Every structure is written in structure tokens, then in C-alpha cells.
């Protein structure tokens, strides 16, 4: 079962989960907290997703057994460090967006990532096929 271990597809599934959480939050946030608050949290979350995508691109192209994929690394670094951080700065300077709300959105990404990784560790989902009779296998 290739989707079951902490492989590279784990991040893709985590990013999808974060996107779903943010999309679910958006209408409720608009209703309960107001449009700008919800949009700020959503923007912070989207920024976090894009940051995570480029962080994984940097790691995958720089730290791998085949050697550095220079072209991909340069593109990922150029997009992540100047452009993405400038976008983050621009979001912080939007007068309607509170920095705290942006931070909450960004933290949602990290919370989902940490909880998914922690859940896998606690349920023992990465122990391999010889542990197939444990609780983790049952809830897989």
C-alpha cells in the first residue's frame, strides 16, 4: 500500500487536507468573524500551503541520492525566497488584514501537518507490513 507510509505522497495528502480545512473555514469564518478576518485567515493558510510546496521542492531537489537538481533548485529558491516572502510582506501590509489573523491561517497549515504526522506516529502507521494487526492498520 504505497499511500500508507511517510513517503513523499504524505505531503500531497496533507496539503489537500489543509486546503479542505481552509475551504470549510472560509464560509463559516465570513459568517461568524466577518469577511476580512476570514479572508486574512484564508490568505495566511494559502500562503502557508504555497510555502510548504516550495519548501518541499527545495528539499526534494537539493537533498536526494542522485545529486542536486540544479535547475529545479534555483527556480524553487528564486520563487520561495524573494517572491513568496514579498507576497507575505504585501499581505502583512494590507490594511484590512490583521497580522494575527494571517498568523492564525499560517498556523492552521502547521497544525494540520503536525497533527497528521503525530497521528501516524502514535497509531504506528509507519511500522511496516509486519505490524499489520495493530490499531493503525485497523483504522488505515
Amino acid at each position: 500500500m504505497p499511500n500508507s507510509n511517510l513517503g513523499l505522497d504524505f505531503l500531497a495528502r496533507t496539503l489537500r487536507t489543509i486546503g479542505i480545512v481552509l475551504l470549510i473555514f472560509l464560509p463559516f469564518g465570513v459568517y461568524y468573524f466577518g469577511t476580512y478576518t476570514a479572508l486574512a485567515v484564508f490568505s495566511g493558510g494559502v500562503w502557508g500551503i504555497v510555502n510548504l510546496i516550495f519548501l518541499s521542492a527545495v528539499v526534494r531537489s537539493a537533498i536526494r541520492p542522485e545529486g542536486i537538481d540544479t535547475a529545479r533548485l534555483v527556480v524553487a529558491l528564486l520563487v520561495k525566497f524573494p517572491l513568496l516572502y514579498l507576497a507575505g510582506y504585501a499581505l502583512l501590509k494590507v490594511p484590512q488584514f490583521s497580522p494575527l489573523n494571517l498568523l492564525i491561517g499560517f498556523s492552521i497549515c502547521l497544525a494540520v501537518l503536525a497533527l497528521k504526522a503525530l497521528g501516524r506516529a502514535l497509531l504506528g502507521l509507519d511500522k511496516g507490513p509486519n505490524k499489520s494487526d495493530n490499531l493503525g492498520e485497523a483504522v488505515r
Partner: protein
Amino acid sequence: MDYQAMLSLALPFGVSLAACGSGYGLGRAVGSAMEAIGRQPEAAGKIQTAMIIGAALIEALTIYALVVFFILQGKIGG
């Protein structure tokens, strides 16, 4: 020393401390990941994923410090 002066000194000091800490942490994480991949290349995918999770969390701490800097920067009067 008044509040404004303390804030003006503490803010850049705090951000630079956070940057130093996360730089050191990331350096150690990358070094260990390289070593682990060199020792066990077939586990590269798992090591990369764990490395990305760790790097995201380390980077987040610096971003938190930076946002706190921007929040408190507005409180420094001219």
C-alpha cells in the same frame, strides 16, 4: 531607559536570535538528513518527508518572530 527604547532594542535582537536559532536548527536537520540518505539511499523519500516537516516547523518559528516584529514595530513611536 523608557519603553520605546527598550522595544527598539529588543525587537531586532529578538528577530536576529530567532533567525540564528532556526538557522542552526535547519543546518543540523539538513546535515543529519544528508548523512541519513548517504547511509540509506533507499529511505530517501521518508527522510525527505521528515526533513520537510521539520524544516516547516523550524521556519515557522522565524516567521512567527518576524510577524511579531511587524506587529510591535507599529508601537515604536517616532
